[in-house]
C-alpha cells in the first residue's frame, strides 16, 4: 500500500491521492473478491482494478484486505451525559480505528434522545468532532425511556432518526410496543428492541447454567430473551394487519432459542431483522470463571479441562445480555453464517474506570467494542468458523440492508462514488491494550489479547477516518 501520501494527513481531510496496490479486495455488494489495485483520487474511489495472471500472483486473502467501510447498527456514544465514558469525538475516533465508517448511535444518553433538541445537539457534536465517520441516530421510543408515553416520534423522524429504541431496556409493555410499532410504521421507521423479560432478568449477573451456579451469580434464563422475542414478534404480527409498513429490529440477540424464533418469523415473511454482537459470537460464560478461550474452543466446563487461566469475576465481562453458553455462542455464529442474523453490531458500551473497578455484581454492564469487533470476527474466520466474505458482509451490506434508504448512500466498492473503505492486514496481529484503544472506554475483556487484522486505513465518505501510525 502506498500510504506515503496519507502519512501526514489529518483526520477528516479529503484523501486526494491513494493507491492500495496488490491487495485482496472484498466487495460483498457485488459478491466479488480477489487481487486488486484500489485507486482513490480527490475523495472518489476512482478504480478497483481486479488483477489477473502474473499481476495477481502471490496475492491471497491472508494479507492486506480492502473492503467497504464497516457499518455498526448499535453503538453507545455516551454524549451528552456520560462524557467520562465516551464523547462523540472519542467514539468516532474509536470507530475509525475499528474500520467503521458509519455508526448508529443509541439514544440512552442523559438526557435521552427523545426530542429534536437532543438530536440537534448530537449533530453539532458530530460536526465539531471533525470526524468523517457517519453518525445515524436512533430516537427513544418513550419519553425519558420510561416506557410509558410515546416520545416525539414524528418530530424525531422529521429530524432524520433511523428508528426508535429504548435500548438498555426493552420497550416496557406489549401495549406500548404495539402503539410504537404502529406509529413508527406510519413514519416508515422500525422499532429496535432490546429483547429482555425484565422480571426474569431482575438483578441478573450471568446467564443461567453451570458457570453461574458454581460462581454463585444471579442467573437469568435464556427464556427471558426468548419470551421477549416471542412477545415482540406476536405484537408485530398483530400490528401488520393495520400498518403493513411496521418493522421490528431485534438487537444483540444472544440465545439459540431466540434465533430460532427469529428464523421462524423470517420464514413466515415477517419484516423482522436482527443483529448479534461479536462478544456473543466469540466469547462465552466460561470467561466469567477465568477461561480465556474462544467460544468455539470451549467445552462449557472449564473446571474439568484446565482452561482456567485468569481470575474469575472480571467486571469487563459484565454485559447485558450476559455472555451465554458455548452452545448459544455457536448458535450466534451459525446465525451469522446462514443469514438469520442480518448483521454483526458491536453494542459498543464504553464505561469509565470507576464504574467497572468495583465488585462484579455492582459493575456497569457493557463492553467497549468498536475497536475489537473486526479482530474478533476475524478470529472466527481464522479458526475456519466463518468465511471471510460472509464475515465482512455481516459488517457491511448486512447492516446496510437493515438500514435501507436511511443509510443515505450505496455500500460497496463502487467506482465513482465517495471512497468508503477499510484496509486491514490479516497477517498482522495487534495487542489490545489501554494504550492501543482510542475509546475512552477500555472496558474490554480482550485487553492483553492479540487479535488478527490490524486496521491500516479507514476512509469514510472520501475523507480520512483513521490511518495506522507506521
Amino acid at each position, binding site marked *: 500500500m502506498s500510504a506515503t501520501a496519507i502519512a501526514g494527513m489529518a483526520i477528516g481531510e479529503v484523501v486526494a491521492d491513494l493507491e492500495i496496490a496488490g491487495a485482496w479486495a472484498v466487495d460483498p455488494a457485488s459478491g466479488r473478491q480477489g487481487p486488486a489495485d484500489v485507486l482513490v483520487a480527490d475523495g472518489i474511489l476512482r478504480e478497483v482494478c481486479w488483477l489477473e495472471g502474473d499481476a495477481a500472483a502471490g496475492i491471497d486473502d491472508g494479507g492486506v484486505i480492502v473492503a467497504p467501510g464497516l457499518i455498526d447498527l448499535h453503538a453507545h456514544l455516551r454524549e451528552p451525559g456520560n462524557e467520562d465514558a465516551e464523547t462523540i469525538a472519542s467514539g468516532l475516533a474509536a470507530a475509525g480505528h475499528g474500520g467503521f465508517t458509519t455508526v448508529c448511535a443509541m439514544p440512552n444518553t442523559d438526557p435521552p434522545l427523545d426530542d429534536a433538541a437532543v438530536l440537534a445537539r448530537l449533530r453539532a457534536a458530530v460536526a465539531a468532532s471533525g470526524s468523517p465517520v457517519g453518525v445515524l441516530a436512533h430516537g427513544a421510543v418513550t419519553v425519558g425511556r420510561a416506557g410509558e408515553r410515546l416520545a416525539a416520534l414524528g418530530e424525531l423522524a422529521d429530524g432524520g432518526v433511523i428508528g426508535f429504541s429504548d435500548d438498555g431496556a426493552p420497550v416496557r409493555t406489549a401495549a406500548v410496543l404495539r402503539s410504537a410499532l404502529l406509529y413508527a410504521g406510519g413514519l416508515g421507521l422500525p422499532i429496535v428492541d432490546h429483547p429482555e423479560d425484565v422480571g426474569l432478568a431482575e438483578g441478573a449477573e450471568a446467564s443461567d447454567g453451570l458457570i453461574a451456579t458454581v*460462581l*454463585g*451469580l444471579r442467573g437469568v434464563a435464556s427464556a427471558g430473551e426468548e419470551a421477549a422475542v416471542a412477545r415482540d414478534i406476536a405484537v408485530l404480527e398483530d400490528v401488520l394487519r393495520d400498518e403493513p409498513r411496521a418493522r421490528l429490529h431485534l438487537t444483540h440477540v444472544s440465545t439459540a432459542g431466540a434465533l430460532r424464533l427469529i428464523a421462524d418469523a423470517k420464514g413466515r415473511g415477517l419484516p423482522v431483522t436482527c443483529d448479534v454482537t461479536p462478544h456473543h459470537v466469540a466469547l462465552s460464560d466460561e470467561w466469567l470463571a477465568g477461561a480465556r478461550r474462544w467460544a468455539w474452543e470451549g467445552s462449557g466446563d472449564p473446571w474439568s479441562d484446565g482452561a482456567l487461566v485468569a481470575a*474469575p469475576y472480571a467486571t469487563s465481562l459484565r454485559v447485558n445480555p450476559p455472555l451465554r453458553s458455548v452452545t448459544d455462542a455457536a448458535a450466534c455464529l451459525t446465525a451469522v453464517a446462514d443469514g438469520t442474523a442480518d448483521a454483526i453490531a458491536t453494542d459498543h458500551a464504553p464505561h469509565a474506570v470507576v464504574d467497572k473497578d468495583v*465488585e462484579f*455484581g455492582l459493575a456497569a454492564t457493557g463492553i467497549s467494542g468498536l475497536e475489537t469487533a473486526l479482530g474478533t470476527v476475524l478470529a472466527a474466520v481464522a479458526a475456519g468458523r466463518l468465511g471471510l466474505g460472509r464475515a465482512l458482509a455481516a459488517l457491511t451490506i448486512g447492516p446496510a440492508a437493515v438500514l435501507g434508504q436511511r443509510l443515505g448512500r450505496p455500500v460497496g466498492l463502487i467506482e465513482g462514488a465517495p471512497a468508503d473503505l477499510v484496509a486491514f492486514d490479516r497477517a498482522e496481529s495487534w495487542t489490545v491494550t489501554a494504550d492501543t484503544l482510542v475509546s475512552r472506554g477500555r472496558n474490554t475483556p480482550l485487553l492483553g489479547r492479540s487479535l488478527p487484522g490490524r486496521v491500516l486505513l479507514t476512509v469514510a465518505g472520501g475523507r480520512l477516518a483513521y490511518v495506522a501510525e507506521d
Partner: protein
Amino acid sequence: MTVDLPAATSEPPAIDAASDPSSGAAIPPPRWRHRHLLDVDVLSWQDIELVMVTADSMKEVLARPIAKVPALRGHNVTILFYEASTRTRISFEVAAKNLAADVVNVAAATSSVTKGESLIDTIRTIEALGADTIVIRHPVSGAPYLAAETFGGSIVNGGDGWHAHPTQALLDLYTMREHLAGGSLAGRKVTIVGDILHSRVARSNIWTLTAAGVDLWLCGPPTLLRGFESWASRGAASGRRFTVTSDIDAALQDADIVMALRIQRERMAGGLLPSLREYAARYGLTSERLETVHPDAIVMHPGPMNEGVEIAPDVAAGSRSVITDQVANGVAIRMAILYLLAGGGRG
C-alpha cells in the same frame, strides 16, 4: 503427619517455626502454596489434608490451659465484614487472637457497598494501616477476588454472596471426619437440605465433599435447587456420585451425614416459597424424618438456625447434633488457615 507449634512461652515468635529444623519439628509439613484463601476449588487434596492436620495441632493448642501461641505475633489481621455476622466474625477474631495476632475489626455498613468508598479504596486504606491479612465477608459474589487483586497481603474469604465460604466447608469436613469411624468420607452419603440456590456454604461444601469422594445429595424445593442439576451432571461424568432431588425421603434414606441450611424469610417475598410453615412441613429436619438415616448419622447446621423451620429444636439439641462441635472446630480451622497463609506451611 504432625505440625509442631511453639508453646506460648517460646521465643522468638517465628511464623516459620514449624518448618525450621531447629524448632524441633519432627516432620517438615508439605508446602502451602496459596497466598489467599478465596475458595476451596483451587485446593488440592494435599492442601486440604494440610489444613486438617494443622487444625489438629490447633485443637491441641486450644486444649492447653493457656490456649494461645505466638505464631502470628506482630501480624495484623483485619476483619472486614460487609454483612451482619456474629459467629463467623467472632470465630476469626478468636482464632487470630489465639495466634497472638493484632486484630482490627471493621464493620462496614452494608450501605457503603453501594455508595461511598469503593471496596478497592477501603482495601488500600486498610493496607496502609498495616494489615497483613484481611478476612472479608461481602454480599456480592466474587468480591474477595477484587480485594485480592488490590491487596499486597493475604485475603481470606469469610463468605461472599452466594459463592463461597471456604473456612465453613473446611470446618464441616473436619467435623465430619472427627465423627465418622475411621475418619474416611469416601462413599459416605452426605445430604445437604435447604436453600441450596442462595447458599455459599453448599457451594464450598460441594467442592470439598466431591473431592472427598462422598455420595453427595442436595435436597430442597425445586425453586431452591435451580441450576444445580448442571453441577451434578458434570460430577457424574467423572464417576462421582452427586444427586440433586426434591425428594426428602430419598435424600435422607441411610444418610451418614445430614446438613440443614438456613431458610431466609426473603425467599417468600421473592416468590420462591409459599411459606415457612410449608417448608417446615415438607423439608424440616424432624426426629420422625430422621428415622431412616444411618443409625450413627450426625446432623449439622452452619448456623444461624431457624429452629422449627429447617430443623426441629429437639434435633438441633439431640444426640446426633454436632452443631456446637462445628463452632468449636471453626476456631481451629481458622487458626490453621491464618497460620498457613502467614507462612506457617512454607517449606
